[in-house]
C-alpha cells in the first residue's frame, strides 16, 4: 500500500506521456515519405515539433534524437519517486560515455566522431571530461572506478579497444543487478537483457572462432543462463544452441536470428528480435497500475522510438526503398 501511493502519481503521469509516443500510423507515414526531409516533416506534427523546427540540416538529425532523449530523462527525473530505478536505467549512458572517452584517450584521438550523451546519464559528461583531463577518477562510483583502473593497468600490455567494452559491460551489469535487487521487475528485466547479450556474445565468439578462455572472460555474470551452459556448448556446432534454447523464452530470437546469419551473414535480425523481445516483456507488464513497470516501459519505448527514427532517417538519407527499411524496424510500443 505504501508503494501504491508512492507510484500512483508517477504512473498516471507516464500514462499521459505514453500518448505522445509515435504510433504505427506515424511511423508508416515516415516510411512512405518521399525523402529524408519529408520523413522529418511527419515528426513536426508530434512531440518533436519544436525540435524539428530548429533543425537546420537534415543530416544533423542525431541532434534531435539526443535532444529528445535528454529532455525525456530530465522530465522523468523531475517527478519520479524512485531515484534508484532511474539511476539503473541511465547507467548505460555513463558507461557508453566512458567507453568513448577511454577509447579516444587510449588511441590518442579526439572523441568527436562518436555520439556522446552530455546530460542523460548519472554523471554529467562535463564532469567525466574533467576527470579525464586531470586523470583523476576518484569521483567515479566505485564499480566504474575499479573498471577504469583495471583498464588503465592492462592497457600497456594489451591496447585493445574491445577490452574496454568487455570490462565496462561486466561492471555495468554487476552494478545493475545489484541496484535492481529490491525491485523484482527491474531485476527480471536486466536478467533477460544480460541473457540476450550473452547469447549474442556466444554467437559472435563462435563465428569469429575466438578461443574458449576469451569467451569465459566476455560472458556477463548477470544472466540466469549460467556461464557453464555456454562454455559446455563451445565445442558443439552453433545449431545445438537453438536446440538447447528451444524451451527458453528466447527460442524465436535465436532461431530466426541465426537463420538470417546463415543466409546473409549478419546479426541485425538477432538484434532487432532481441530488442522486440525486451519491449514485449515490458509491454506485457505495463498496465500494472502501481509500480515501476510503466516507467521502465515508457523509457524503453522512448529509446526504441529513437532507434526507429534513426533507422528510418539513415535509410531515407541513403535512399533505401521503404520495404528494406521496414525489415530493420522494431515494433512500436503503443
Amino acid at each position: 500500500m505504501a508503494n501504491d501511493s508512492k507510484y500512483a502519481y508517477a504512473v498516471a503521469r507516464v500514462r499521459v506521456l505514453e500518448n505522445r509516443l509515435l504510433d504505427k500510423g506515424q511511423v508508416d507515414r515516415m516510411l512512405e515519405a518521399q525523402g529524408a526531409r519529408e520523413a522529418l516533416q511527419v515528426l513536426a506534427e508530434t512531440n518533436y515539433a519544436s525540435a524539428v523546427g530548429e533543425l537546420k540540416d537534415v543530416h544533423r538529425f542525431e541532434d534531435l534524437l539526443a535532444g529528445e532523449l535528454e529532455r525525456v530523462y530530465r522530465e522523468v527525473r523531475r517527478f519520479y519517486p524512485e531515484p534508484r530505478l532511474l539511476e539503473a536505467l541511465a547507467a548505460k549512458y555513463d558507461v557508453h560515455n566512458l567507453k568513448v572517452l577511454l577509447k579516444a584517450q587510449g588511441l590518442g584521438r579526439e572523441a568527436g566522431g562518436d555520439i556522446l550523451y552530455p546530460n542523460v546519464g548519472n554523471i554529467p559528461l562535463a564532469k567525466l571530461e574533467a576527470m579525464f583531463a586531470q586523470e583523476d577518477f576518484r569521483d567515479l562510483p566505485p564499480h566504474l572506478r575499479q573498471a577504469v583502473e583495471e583498464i588503465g593497468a592492462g592497457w600497456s600490455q594489451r591496447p585493445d579497444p574491445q577490452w574496454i567494452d568487455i570490462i565496462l559491460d561486466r561492471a555495468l551489469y554487476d552494478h545493475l543487478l545489484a541496484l535492481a535487487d529490491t525491485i523484482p521487475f527491474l531485476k527480471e528485466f536486466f536478467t533477460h537483457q544480460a541473457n540476450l547479450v550473452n547469447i549474442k556474445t556466444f554467437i559472435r565468439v563462435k563465428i569469429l572462432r575466438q578461443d574458449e578462455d576469451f569467451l569465459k572472460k566476455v560472458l556477463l555474470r548477470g544472466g540466469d543462463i549460467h556461464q557453464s551452459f555456454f562454455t559446455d556448448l563451445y565445442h558443439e556446432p552453433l545449431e545445438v544452441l537453438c536446440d538447447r534454447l528451444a524451451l527458453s523464452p528466447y527460442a524465436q530470437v535465436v532461431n530466426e536470428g541465426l537463420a538470417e546469419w546463415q543466409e546473409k551473414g549478419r546479426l541485425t535480425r538477432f538484434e532487432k528480435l532481441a530488442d522486440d523481445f525486451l519491449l514485449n516483456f515490458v509491454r506485457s507488464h505495463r498496465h500494472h497500475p502501481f509500480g515501476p513497470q510503466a516507467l521502465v516501459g515508457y523509457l524503453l519505448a522512448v529509446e526504441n522510438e529513437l532507434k526507429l527514427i534513426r533507422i528510418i532517417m539513415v535509410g531515407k538519407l541513403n535512399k533505401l526503398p521503404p520495404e528494406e527499411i521496414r525489415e530493420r524496424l522494431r515494433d512500436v510500443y503503443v
Partner: protein
Amino acid sequence: MAIVEMKKIYLFAHRAEKEKMVRALQSLGLVEIRQVEEKPTWKGCGDLRSIQEPEALHRLESRLNEIKYSLDLLARHFPLKKGFLEQFAGSKMTLTPEEFSTFGAEGEQVDKIYQACRRLDEGFTALGNEENRVENLLSDLAPYRDLNLPLKELGVSERVSVRLGSLPAASLAQFKDLLAREAPETHVQVVSQDKEVAHIFLIYLRDCPPVEAALKEHNWTDLQVPAHLTASPAQCMAQLEEKLAREREKGQGLLAQVEKLLPQRPRLMAYYDYLALKRDRLAVTDNFLSTDQAVLMTGWARAADIPQIEEHLAQVGETATLLARDPVEGEIPPVALKNGPLVEPFEAVTNLYSTPSPKEIDPTAALAPFFFVFFGITLGDAGYGILLTLLSLLLLKLMQPKGMGEQLIKLLALGGGAALCFGILTGSWFGDMINLPPLWFNPLDDPMKMLIFSMALGVIHLFAGMAIQAYRSIAAGKPWDAVFDQGFWYLLLIGLMLLALPAVAGLGKVLAIAGAVGLVLTQGRGQKNMVMKFFSGLLSLYDLTGYLSDVLSYSRLLALGLASGVIAVAINTMGRLVGSAGVVGFVLMLIILIGGHFFNLIIGTLGAYVHTSRLQYIEYFGKFFEGGGKAFTPFKINTQYVDLEEREA
C-alpha cells in the same frame, strides 16, 4: 426498436465539382464517408484510381502546427481560463459562416504572428539559460561573500599561487595540520564553512609540491570564476544581482510583447479552425476514386436523411448523382440511435457502456423507465429533485452543450423530476426541513418494507431484461431458445418466490420443480456427450446464486436513498443546534444549511447516477445486451475553437 436504418450510398460527380460536393457534405454533416472498397466493374467506367494530395495535405498540416505552436506559446504565458463545467462541455466563440469565411485571407497576418512567437520563444529560452548561469554563479560565490579580495588576484603569479576553493569539512583539520607541518609559510583562511564543505582562501609558494599533493589528497575543488569578474566577491555578486534583475526585466519585456499578441488569439483560433476544416475536406478525398472525368465516393447515411442529402447536393452542383442501397451480407453499417425527446437523454447511458451492434435492439427505451425510477429512489428527496432540475436547466441554457454533454444534463434534469416524485411519496423535503406528510410512507420508519420494495423492483427489472432476450431469440427464429433459457428460469424463479407466501406455496413448489427439471434437461444441449449434457444442465442450476446476488444488489436503492435522506437530516440537526444562538448562530446556520445541502446534493447525485447506471450495465444488460457496434460518425464541421451559427435551412 430505435436503431436507425442505414443505407450505403454511392455518390458520383464531375471532377470539377468535387470540391463543392465535399464542402456541401461537410456542412450537411449527414454522411459517414468510407474508403471505396469494391472496384466497380461497370461498363465503360475505365481506370479508377485514388486521388490523394499528400503535398497539399502536408502543407496544411504544417501550417496548422505553426498556429498551434503560437497558440501554445500564448497559452503558456497567459492561460485561457476555463471554468470547471466548461471542461465537460467546452465553450467556443460563435461566428456566423460569413464572418468565418473571411478568415481565408488571413494567411499572411498569421504568418507574421507565428514568426513573432518563434522569436519570443527563442528569447525566453535564451533568457532562461542566462538566468540559470547567473544564478549558479551567485550560489557559487555566496560562500566567499565576506572575503575582501579582488577576484582578479586569483591565479598563479611569479612567486605565489592564490586560490579559492572548497574541500570536505571533515578533512579540514587534517588538511590544516598537513600544511602547517609541510609548508608552514602557506596562508590558509577558512572563509566560511557548513556541515559538509569548507570554503578556503589559500596562498602558497608557487609550485610547492607538498601543498599540491595535500590539495589533491583532500579533494580540493577550485572555485570557477569567469574572467570578467574582477572585483571582490561581494561586489561581483552585486554586479550579478544587477544583471539578473536586468535579465528579469528583459523577461518582463518579452512578456509584454506576448501580451501585445494576445488580442490576436481569437483570430488565430478562428484561422486554425478554418484551416482544420480545409484539412478535413482534403483528408477525406483520400477515400475517393476517380476517373479523368468523375469522382466516386461511398459512405453511410441514415435512410431518412437521403432525400435531404439528394436535394441539397442537387442544389449545390449539377452533376451529382446519389445511389443508395441496403447493406448487404457481411457489411457492418455504423449505428445511429433515434429516440423520442423524453428517451433520448438516456442514450448517454447506453453509449457510455457501448454502442449497440447493428444486429440488436437499442436498449435505450427499455432502460429509460427503470433508470428514471431508480434514480428517483436513490436521490430520494423532493427538495434536491427540484434543485437538481433547476440547476440542470440553467446549465443547459447557459452553456448550450452539444452531443453527450447535452444528453447527460438533460438526464440529470429528468432525474431531478424523478427524485421530486419519490420525495413527495416519502415526505422528504431537504430531509426533514419542510414537514410534509408522506403520501406513501417514510423509509426511515419501516426500512424492511422499503427493502422488499427495492428488491421487488429488481425482480421486475431482471425479468424485463430476460423478456427482451426471449424476444430476440424469437425474432431470430429460435423460439425454443426462449422457452429453454428464459421460460424455465421464469418458472423456477417465480416458483421460488411463491414458496415464500404460505397461501400459494404449493403452486410455487410445483412451478419451481418444473422449472428446475426443465433447466437440467435443456441447459446442456450445447454438449455432445450424454453425460456432459446432464452435468451441464445440473450445473446451470448454480446460476441461481447469480440471480440471488443480482436481486440483492438492488438493496442499494434503499441504502443510498436512506443515505442522502439521513445526511440531509443530519445537516438540518446541526443547523438547528447552532441556529438558536443569536445573529451569529443564524448566519452560521445558513452557512451550514446551504453548504451542507449543496454538498449532499452533489454527492447524492453522483451516487444516484453511478449506481443507477451500474444496475443497468451489470444486472440488466447482462441479461440481453451485447454491444460492440461502431457509432455513426458523419463527416461534418468539426471545430476546436469556433462554433458556427446554424445556417438558416
